[in-house]
């Protein structure tokens, strides 16, 4: 049993959790809600185990580095951060229905890792050998995960206010729009904090590795673009009092920028190596 197998199993477990959340939503079945949460917890434990095992595998191969060094590893980690952050939100705010939109993202991330990327363990290239790697990736992905969940909630918001469907009973089931709006904002605040920290740790790292904290590399620039978008959102809300639909659209727009920072940039040239 190696870490790739564990990740494959995790993919299925997350997929099952998604289904249970949907069942909970459509059939209002309390028991499937409980199962969904339990399965998602189990999935995250497997996910952690997979990452831990992969970490030890890098040692067995004689490289010994945190498994955050390529697209595959970052995706498995992204998946875990989404799952854990969502579970936190579920426990804190008790809105299980959010899982219908959050768990698929954890599932998609890890499914893409298993199917679409190269899972080979490779040694670290010299520039990645730094303790800043862990701090940088950890904070960035916490930020991304929060934005992902905010995105899910914003979609819910838009569904909820859409006139064509808001009479349907399953749509009525969704949390109140004020709750959705508030949660979107909370997630974005959380994400903005960690994105800021991620950009800062990245800059400090770049300064220690290449002698410059900022070089307008496409990935750097796109993370800054993302940051600008969410900063706009925060100010528009705090000062101009934007709420609801406008915030939902901005949040979706921001998440598109996150996705581009993460994946799209690989089609542009630059220093960040997660593309290959």
């Amino acid at each position, binding site marked *: 049993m190696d870490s790739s197998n564990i990740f494959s199993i995790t993919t299925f477990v997350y997929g099952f959790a998604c289904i249970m959340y949907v069942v909970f939503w459509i059939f209002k079945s309390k028991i499937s809600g409980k199962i969904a949460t339990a399965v998602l917890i189990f999935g995250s434990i497997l996910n952690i185990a997979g990452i831990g095992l992969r970490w030890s595998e890098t040692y067995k191969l004689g490289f010994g580095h945190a498994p955050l060094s390529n697209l595959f590893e970052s995706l498995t980690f992204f998946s875990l951060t989404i799952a854990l952050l969502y579970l936190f939100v579920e426990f804190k705010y008790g809105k299980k229905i959010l899982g219908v939109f959050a768990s698929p993202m954890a599932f998609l991330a890890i499914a893409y890792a298993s199917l679409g990327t190269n899972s080979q363990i490779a040694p670290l290239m010299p520039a990645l050998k730094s303790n800043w790697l862990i701090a940088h990736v950890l904070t960035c992905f916490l930020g991304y995960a929060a934005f992902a969940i905010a995105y899910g909630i914003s979609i819910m918001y838009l569904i909820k206010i859409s006139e064509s469907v808001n009479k349907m009973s399953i749509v009525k089931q969704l949390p109140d729009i004020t709750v959705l709006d508030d949660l979107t904002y909370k997630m974005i605040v959380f994400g903005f904090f960690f994105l800021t920290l991620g950009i800062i740790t990245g800059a400090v790292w770049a300064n220690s590795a*290449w002698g410059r904290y900022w070089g307008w590399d496409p990935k750097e620039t796109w993370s800054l673009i993302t940051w600008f978008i969410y900063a706009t959102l925060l100010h528009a809300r705090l000062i101009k009092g934007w709420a609801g639909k406008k915030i939902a659209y901005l949040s979706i727009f921001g998440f598109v920028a996150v996705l581009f920072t993460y994946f799209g940039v690989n089609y542009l*040239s630059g220093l960040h190596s997660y593309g290959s």
Partner: protein
Amino acid sequence: MKKNTTENKLLTFFSSIKLTIFLLLALAATSVIGTVVEQNLNSFEYINRYGQSVYDIFKLLNITDMYHSWWFLLLICLLVLNIIICSIQNLKKTWDIIFVKNPKFNINQFKKYKNRVQILSNLPLEKLIETVETKIIKKYSYKKTDRTKNGIIFFAEKNRWVKSGVYIVHLGVVLLLVGSLIGSLFGFDGYMNIAEGERNNVVKTGGSNKIRLLDFSVQCDKFNVLFYDSGMAEEYKSTLSIIENSKVVLKKDIVVNSPLRYKGINLFQSSYGVLDPEKIHAEIYNRQAEKIYEFDTVLGKKITLPDDMGILTITNYHKSFNFKGRKMGKAFTGVLNTADKDVFDIVMPYPFFEIKPSDQADLSSMINMLCTKRSKAYVEKIPVSFLSNKTKMVYKKIVEFGQSVKIPEDTGSFILTELKKSYSFKGHNLGETYMGKVTYPSGDTVHIAIPRKYPKFDKMRNGKVIIKIEDIPAKEKEAAFLPVISNFHSKYYTGLQVTKDPGVYTVYLGFIFIISGCFIAFFMAHERICIILEKTKKQTKIMISGKSDKNAQGMKIKISQFSRSINKKR
């Protein structure tokens, strides 16, 4: 009230949140351009990719270096102005909230808050007061009590300073931008290459080939690359010494991620390379004598070989050599001048396979492949025939390069000028071609080309005389020797990125401000609570109410906890 002067209008404009939203979105949108259009390439590259007219637009708008363009910097400056003016305008209000000595509490407001709790307690008033004082308001930094006719009112407040969070963030953003400005004004970013054992103090900066001299020299004592088994680089390491006044003042190993910093200058490991080899050890195998000779040489040195084999000069080293369309990897090339004045161009691949004298046939073909005899046309006498168009007579003559010969029948003179390596005729390359010139008695001249492959080429011209190269020099001779490089030593040079950025501390301070300010603004809350204890006939009425800036949910939970802990007997 202030009048609506231009000054005021400007202030309103620069402090407006509309401007903020516009600037932030404009920065986001324009930044995209620079990630799509690759920055700082040379002009040919842009013209090649986008065409001249697009390139003209790029130049006009500075798109090719857009993050340093005037309009991008203008957006940033406006943002700074926006932040500063906006903050100053709000600061007064916030200042009064934060630094007020006796904050005002309005009971009626507290009585309206939704999360207020009201209970009746059977405990005596004194006991309740004690609990409130020891258990609840202890955690608040500011407290105030008011005695009333039949009871007491507590006010408490904490984290008033949390309101300063946004100012800290904004100050951080300003510091960050100021720091980067300092960096771009007083710093530089360049590189230097230093060979092992050598020292240097010249830094090349920017694309415009500017240089900058350091106050000290950097010496590369040693450079080393470690590779993983897969061939991927694992680590680059340079041992550097800083030399000042011809004394070594600092010595350090630098690797990627672990630079050397000295006097505000940072030296980073960024690349490496191999210099041309020195100390080449070669062997030469004499086919006829079946002997191997060994010798040491360096690039460009003429080596006189024993047994009258001639003079060998190894002229060049190639990191990856293309030979007859094949990639050969590392190789040396050189020239062998034999005793009988043949000249051979020789390719010496490295590493070479072992020579097995038994494999004579293989060896022979190998030698023929690697040693190419140069044409000696320049020194040879060329047999040329002249065909008279009038009489159809053919005359043969031996011609040397540069020597004028008379063409029979008083047709004029002929001179063979050169042998061109290639000759293009109507778009076809005809290969090696003899070039000559005919001068008629009238003084007219005609230039003549005769490709080696087509001796009758001149017929086409249909001149008075047709010139033909009769006999192309004999088949190429084989080399009798095969030089082989058995090993060589070449020095590495280390590529250092050299930077100086006096603004980096300001930037880092900005980072600290931004992140701590965000933490304060996002995750901490200004909290105010009010507890009213009031004696009724038998019981005590308790009201607890409070407000938290950001964490309404948390406050609600807190208040219900308070109410439970007050009412506990013990």
